[in-house]
């Protein structure tokens, strides 16, 4: 039940926020090194120098925090949707409808997506170097 709803929520998030960031990312790569630097500066801003003086600065700081969280969230949404998508394909074939197997499969998608998200970000943030 929860996993089925998560499939829809993560699907909608990936469709709207995920694809918007992907288009933005490709446009930035197509632009120039400077355009790409401004893209990474926006989506992966330095949270050490957040400015809270004035409305514009507050909006900018909130946007920085939101985009950073959005990247973590989208990574998780990607894996959650991918794993529950695999689960749906298996269930389309008529397998996995026994209560216990079904529940185990649902829990596996959640554990899998959290583990994959943690691993990938640990790698990108240099935990394995």
């Amino acid at each position, binding site marked *: 039940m929860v996993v089925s709803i998560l499939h*829809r929520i993560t*699907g*909608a998030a*990936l*469709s709207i926020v995920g*694809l*918007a960031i*992907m*288009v933005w990312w*490709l*446009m*930035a*790569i*197509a632009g*120039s*090194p400077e*355009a*790409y*630097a401004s893209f990474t500066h926006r989506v992966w801003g330095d949270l050490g120098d957040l400015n809270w003086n004035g409305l514009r600065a507050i909006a900018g700081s909130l946007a920085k925090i939101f985009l950073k969280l959005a990247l973590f969230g989208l990574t998780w949404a*990607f894996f959650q949707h*991918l794993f529950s*998508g*695999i689960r*749906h*394909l298996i269930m*389309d074939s008529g397998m996995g409808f026994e209560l216990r197997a079904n529940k185990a499969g649902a829990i596996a998608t959640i554990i899998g997506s959290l583990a994959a998200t943690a691993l*990938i970000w640990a*790698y990108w943030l240099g935990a394995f170097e």
Partner: protein
Amino acid sequence: MSIGESATELGKVRGLGSARAGGVGWLGERISSVALLLLGAWFVASLLFLPKLDQRTLAEWLRSPAGAVPMALFVITSFWHSVDGLKQVVDDYVEGEVGRWFVNTLVLFLAVAGASLALFALGRIAFGAAA
């Protein structure tokens, strides 16, 4: 009693038959999901195996056929699958025939615009002057 009319609920459903275009939509969504399984795995693996994620490395990757072609397919299939999936959500949660038609059409327009923009960017990387 004409088709679709019946004394019982089950009889009504039987009389109505299928939703006509439903089967194609159902299958299409599953085919695009299998394609995205492969392309998504390729996308994540590529990001993990690229030596750096700066503009030069990424542009070089997306200029090569091995990067440009799967990425174009990833973009097209992602938008396709999004339109299919969002249509299901819209059909379930938006009230009224007119409202559903309006939101679904809006989603389609935005998806075509987004996909075109992404493909334009890819074309510019692949065929534009080397930066």
